[in-house]
C-alpha cells in the first residue's frame, strides 16, 4: 500500500510509468505504420522486368538509345584513321593495316576488340568521325572461355572507306546484328588459348 501511495504522490515515478507505457505504444504504433506502408505495395504495380521470359516489350526498346553496350564495328565505313586505337586508355582495340606491294592499296586486315578488358567508357566512339565504331545495345556478353570475348570484326581484308565531303549522315548499321554475329555461342571452344595447359 505504501508503494501505491508513493506512486500516487511522486510525480517522477508517475512520469516514469507513463514513459514506459508510451514507449510500448510508440513501438507498436511505428511497427504498424511501417507494416501499412509495406502492405500498400500489394496494390501497386510491380516494376520487375521478367528478363528473359516474360517481357512486355523487347529489351531493345527498354534500353535507351545512348546505352553503352558492347562495341560494334560497321567495317564498310571505317576510314582506318586509328583514332579509336590511340584514344583507348587501356589499349583494348587492335587495328592492322596492310599495303598491297603491287597495287599500293591499303587494306584493313584486322580490327579486334577485347571486350573482356573493355571498360565501356565510350571515349573511342566519341572520336570516331564516321560512326563506324558504335555501342550496340547488346549487354549480355557471357562466355565460358575468356578468349571468346575477343571479337574479330574482319573476315576478309577490307578497303578503307573514303569519306565524301557531302554526306552528313552515314547509314551505319547500329542494330547490333554485327556484334551479335561476332559473339560466339556460350559453349563454343575458343580459337586460341591464353594458357598452354589446355
Amino acid at each position: 500500500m505504501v508503494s501505491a501511495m508513493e506512486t500516487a504522490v511522486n510525480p517522477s515515478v508517475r512520469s516514469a510509468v507513463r514513459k514506459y507505457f508510451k514507449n510500448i505504444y510508440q513501438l507498436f504504433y511505428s511497427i504498424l505504420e511501417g507494416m501499412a506502408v509495406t502492405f500498400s505495395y500489394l496494390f501497386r504495380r510491380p516494376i520487375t522486368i521478367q528478363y528473359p521470359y516474360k517481357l512486355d516489350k523487347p529489351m531493345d526498346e527498354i534500353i535507351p538509345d545512348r546505352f553503352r553496350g558492347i562495341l560494334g564495328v560497321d567495317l564498310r565505313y571505317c576510314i582506318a584513321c586509328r583514332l579509336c586505337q590511340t584514344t583507348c586508355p587501356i589499349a583494348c582495340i587492335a587495328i592492322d593495316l596492310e599495303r598491297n606491294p603491287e597495287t599500293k592499296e591499303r587494306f584493313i586486315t584486322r580490327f579486334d576488340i577485347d571486350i573482356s578488358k573493355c571498360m565501356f567508357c565510350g571515349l573511342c566512339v566519341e572520336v570516331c568521325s564516321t560512326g563506324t565504331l558504335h555501342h550496340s545495345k547488346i549487354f549480355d556478353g557471357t562466355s565460358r572461355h575468356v578468349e571468346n570475348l575477343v571479337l574479330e570484326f574482319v573476315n576478309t581484308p577490307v578497303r578503307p572507306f573514303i569519306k565524301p565531303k557531302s554526306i552528313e549522315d552515314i547509314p551505319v548499321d547500329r542494330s547490333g546484328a554485327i556484334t551479335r554475329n561476332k559473339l560466339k555461342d556460350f559453349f563454343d571452344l575458343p580459337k586460341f588459348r591464353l594458357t598452354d595447359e589446355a
Partner: protein
Amino acid sequence: MKNPAKVNEAIRHLKPQAAPFEEEMSLNFGPQHPSTHGVLNFLVVTDGEVMHQALPNIGYLHRGIEKLAEMTPYSGFMPYTDRVDYLAAMFANQVFAMAVESLAEIEVPKRAEYLRVIVCELNRIASHFIATGALALDLGAVTPFVQWLREREFINDIMEALCGARLTYNYMRIGGVSVDMPGDLPDKILRFLDHFEPIIDEYNRLISNNEIFVKRLADVAVISPIDAVNFGLVGPNLRASGIGIDLRKTLGYSVYPDFDFEVPLGKGFRGALGDAYDRYMVRILEMTQSCRIIRQALEKIPGGEYRANVKKKLKVEENEVYSRVESARGEMGVYLISDGTDRPYRLKIKTGSFTAMSIVEKASQGLMVADLIALIGSLDVVAPEVDR
C-alpha cells in the same frame, strides 16, 4: 593465407599492447561480411559483448589509381575517376575535371555547369539511398533497402538515358560534359521528383520513425564536434556533429551560389548530438534539399554550348592545384601536379571515407559488438574510396 600461424603473425600488430579486460578475445570481422559495405576488415577486441576496440584493416581494394594517373593522359583518366567512388561517380568526375580546367585555364560553359549540378545532385540522392538503406539492412530491416533499390533504378534509368551507363557514368569531360541531355529528360527528372518526394515521407514512416530502429541508433557511437574536427570528418558525418561546413556553401564552386537550399545539421533528433541516428537523419534531410536544387536547376538552365573547345591531346604547363567538391561522402579533393606533358606528374585523391574510417578506432571503444555495424553503416564508408 592458408597457414594460421602466418595469419596470427600478420594481425599481431593490430592487437593493442595492454589488455583492459581480464578475458578478452579477438574477432575477425570481414572482409567478406554482408554488412561491411564492401571489403573492409576489422579486428574486434572484445570481452564477449563490449568492445575494447575495433581496429580497421583496410587496403583490400587498393587499386593504385594514383599511380595509374601518372601513366594515363588527362582525357583518358576520366573513366578511372568513376571507380574512385562508384556510388557517387559524378563527384569524382567533377573534381578531376575542375582540377584540370583550373590548371589549363579552361572556361566551362554555363549550361555544362548546370548539367553537372543536376547529375551530381541526382547522384547524391542515389548514393544516400545505399547509405541509408544499407544501414537499415545491416540492422535487420530488409524492406527499406529493397525500397531504395527500387527508387534507385529510376535514377539509374535517368542516368542511362543521359549518358549510357548505370553506374560508371564517365559523363563529364574536361571543359564540360560529354553530351547534352535529350529533350525529354527534364520531364523525366521532374516526374521522378514528383514521385520521389512523397516517398521520403513514406520511407520515414516505414523505418526512420520505427522505434526499434531509433533505439538501435540513438545515443550510439556519439562523435563529439571536437573529435569530428580532430579526426577530419567531412560531409554529412561532420554536419551530424553540428558543424555546418558544406563546401557548396563555403566555397560556392560551380553554380551552387545560384540556388537556394539549406544545409541540414544534426541536432540530436532522437538522442545525443552526433550519434548514429543524427548521421542517418542528416542524409535523409539532404535528399530533400537535393530535390530542391534539381528543380531550381531545371528551371534556370540556360541554353548554349555544353562543352568548351579543348584540344584532344591536352598538355598542361607546370603548375599545381588542389580542387575540392562536396561529394555525397563529404569533401573530395584532387591534388594535381602537372609538369608540361600530357599526363599528370602526381595526382592525389583525398576522400571522405578515408578519414571517416580512421575514427572507427576511437568511436568504437566501449560499444557493443552489434553497435559496430551501426557505427560503420552510419559513417557510410565505401571501400574503394577508403583504399583508392
